[in-house]
C-alpha cells in the first residue's frame, strides 16, 4: 500500500514578539491509503497544529510534507487552496455549515470552487448526501436539522470531491454520546469503502473506532500504535 501522507521531521515555530514557541518539534509519520487514524493528545500537545499542517492551512516552518505524492512545502496560497479543494475533505467540531443555505448547496460548495457546472454539482452532491444517509433532506436549512444531521451534511461536503483524505477535527465534540456513536459508525463505514480518515480527538472511546492511534505530547509523538477497533 502506498503512503497518502508522509511527514518527515515537521517543525512549526510560532513567533510572538521576541518569544518563540515550538508547537511541533520534529514530527514524522506516514499514513497509508485506507487507514483510519486518530490523533490524540491533551490540549497544547500540538495535535491541532499538526492537523492544520495536514490540512494545508498552516505551512510548517521546516520539514517535508508529501500529500498524495505532492510536495506541499513551498506551495503558494492559491496552490494550497487548490490542494485543499481537490485532495482534502474537512469535518469540523462546530459543523461549520453556511447558515440560511440549503443542505445540498452546502454540500455543493467545494465543487463550486472546483469549477464544476451546476447540474454536475447537484448530481454529485445528491450522491454524497445519500452516502451519509441524508437523502430527502436536501432543501433543509442547517437550522432545521439536528446536530447529528448537520454533521452528516458536513461529512457529505467533505466527501463530495472524492478527496484523498478526510480530516476530522473533534467531529463528535458537539454531539451527545448516541449521536457521536452514529457519526463514528458512519466514519467506520466510509473507511471500509476505502476512504482514508484522520481524526483529531481527545476522547478515548471515540479514538477506539480508529485503526491506529497517534498520541502527541509537547509537540512530539509519544506513541503510535495499531488498535483492534471493534465496537
Amino acid at each position, binding site marked *: 500500500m502506498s503512503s497518502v501522507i508522509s511527514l518527515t521531521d515537521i517543525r512549526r515555530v510560532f513567533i510572538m514578539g521576541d518569544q518563540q514557541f515550538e508547537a511541533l518539534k520534529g514530527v514524522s509519520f506516514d499514513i497509508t491509503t485506507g487507514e483510519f487514524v486518530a490523533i490524540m493528545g491533551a490540549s497544547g500537545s500540538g495535535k491541532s497544529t499538526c492537523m*492544520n499542517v495536514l*490540512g494545508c492551512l498552516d505551512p510548517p516552518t521546516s520539514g517535508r510534507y508529501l500529500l498524495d505524492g505532492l510536495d506541499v512545502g513551498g506551495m503558494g496560497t*492559491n496552490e494550497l*487552496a*487548490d490542494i485543499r479543494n481537490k485532495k482534502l475533505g474537512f469535518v469540523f467540531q462546530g459543523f*461549520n455549515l453556511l447558515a440560511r443555505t440549503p443542505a445540498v448547496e452546502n454540500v455543493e460548495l467545494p465543487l463550486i*470552487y472546483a469549477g464544476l457546472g451546476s447540474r454536475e454539482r447537484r448530481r454529485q452532491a445528491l450522491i454524497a448526501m445519500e452516502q451519509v444517509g441524508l437523502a430527502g433532506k436536501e432543501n433543509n436549512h442547517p437550522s432545521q436539522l439536528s446536530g447529528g444531521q448537520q454533521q452528516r451534511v458536513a461529512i457529505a461536503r467533505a466527501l463530495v470531491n472524492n478527496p484523498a483524505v478526510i480530516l476530522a477535527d473533534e467531529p463528535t465534540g458537539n454531539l451527545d454520546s448516541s449521536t457521536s456513536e452514529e457519526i463514528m459508525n458512519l466514519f467506520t463505514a466510509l473507511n471500509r469503502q476505502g476512504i482514508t480518515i484522520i481524526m483529531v480527538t481527545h476522547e478515548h472511546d471515540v479514538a477506539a473506532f480508529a485503526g491506529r492511534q497517534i498520541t502527541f505530547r509537547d509537540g512530539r509523538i509519544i506513541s503510535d500504535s495499531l488498535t483492534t477497533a471493534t465496537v
Partner: protein
Amino acid sequence: MDFIQTLKIALRALRTNKMRSFLTMLGIIIGIAAVIAMMAVGSGASYVISQQIASIGSNIILVIPGSTTSGGLRTGSGGAQTLSSDDARSIGTDCPSVAYAAGTVRASGQIISGNMNWSSVIMGGTPELFEIREWPVVSGRAISQQDEDGAIKVCLLGQTVAENLFGSADPVGSIVRIKKIPFTVIGILERKGQSPQGQDQDDAVFVPLRTAQRNLVRSQRTGIVSAIIVKAKSEELIDKAEKEIQMLLNQRHRITAAKEPDFTTRNLSEILAVAEQSAKAMSLLLGAVASISLIVGGIGIMNIMLVSVTERTREIGIRMAIGAKKNDILLQFMTEAVLLTMLGGLIGIALGAGGATGVSRFLGWPTMISIQSITIAFLFSAAVGIFFGFYPAKKAAGLNPIDALRYE
C-alpha cells in the same frame, strides 16, 4: 468559480439582510438621483440658452454709435448719430470677411388696425437684416430691395403683433397705421421666441430702412442709422470681420490715434457664449455638489461591507478551507458591494429622472435628461462600489483560514 455563481452568492447575502441592504443603498440612491436631477436642470438651462443664441442668428457683430457730448453732458454709448446707411452699405461691400451688413433704426409707437391697437417696437432695416437674423417670413413676402429703394410704406409683422391686432385672421394685404401713417402688411415673420435678455422678439414690426428714416424717426441728418448689424462669413472670421469693420469705419470717420472712435463694435455670440459657459459651469457645480453625497453613500457602503466581513469571518474561513482562493473571496465581496451600488444607481436614476420631470412639469423649469448623464451616473455608481468595496473585500481575502474558522 463562475460569475453567475458569484452573483447568486452575493444576491443571497444581500437578501439575508434586506433592511440593511436597502439602507446602505439609500446613500447611493439619493446621490445618483441628485446627480441626475441636477444635471437635467443644468443641461436644460444651457439648452435654452443655446436655443436663444440660435434665435439671434449666428456670427453676428453689432456696430453702434459712440457717445456724444452735448452741452457738457455725455450720452451713453449709442447716443451719437454717427453711423449712416452708407457706412452699412460700405461694410457689406468692402469688408471681405463680412457676409451681410444691415443698417437699422428703431422706434416705438402705436400700431392701429381697425378698432385694435398695440404698442410695439418698430424696426427699420434693409432686406439683409432678415438674412443676418435668419428670420424668414411664414406668409406673404419679405421686404425687397425695391421696397427699400423706393421707401415704400410696407411692413412685416412679428407673431405677437399679428395676434394682437388680427387674432387668427390673415393680416397679409391689410392696412395698419404706424404712428398714424398707413402701411401695407406684406408678410408675417416666423416665431422667434424670447431673446437671451428675456424680451419677446416677436413683439416687433419691421419696415424698410429708408421708409423708417423718412417717416418714423427724427434725426439731425438724413441716412442716419441707430445700429448696423453685421454677419461674418463664418465663426472663425468673426474676429477678423470685427477688425475690418473697425479699420473701415476709422477710415470713413477719419478717426486718428488722437481722436476717440465714434462707434463701438460688439460681438454678440461672444456674449452669449459666456452665458452658455456660465450655465454649463452651474450644471457642473450642481453635479459636483451632488457627487459629494455619492461619496458619502460610498463610505456607507464601505462601512457596512466591513461589518459584513467581520460578521461572516467564519463563512470566509469555511470557504477558504474547502478551496476558495483569495481571489474568489475578493470577488465575492466586491460583487456584493458593486451589486449594492448598481442597484442603488438604477433606483437613483429612476428617481432622479422622475424628479427632473416633476420639476419641469410643476415649476416650469426646462430640464433635459441625457442618455449620457444616465450612463455616467450608472458607471459612476459601479465605480463607487468598486472603490469602496475594495478595501473590505481585500480585508476578507487576506484573512487567515485558521483564525477565520476559529472566529466566534
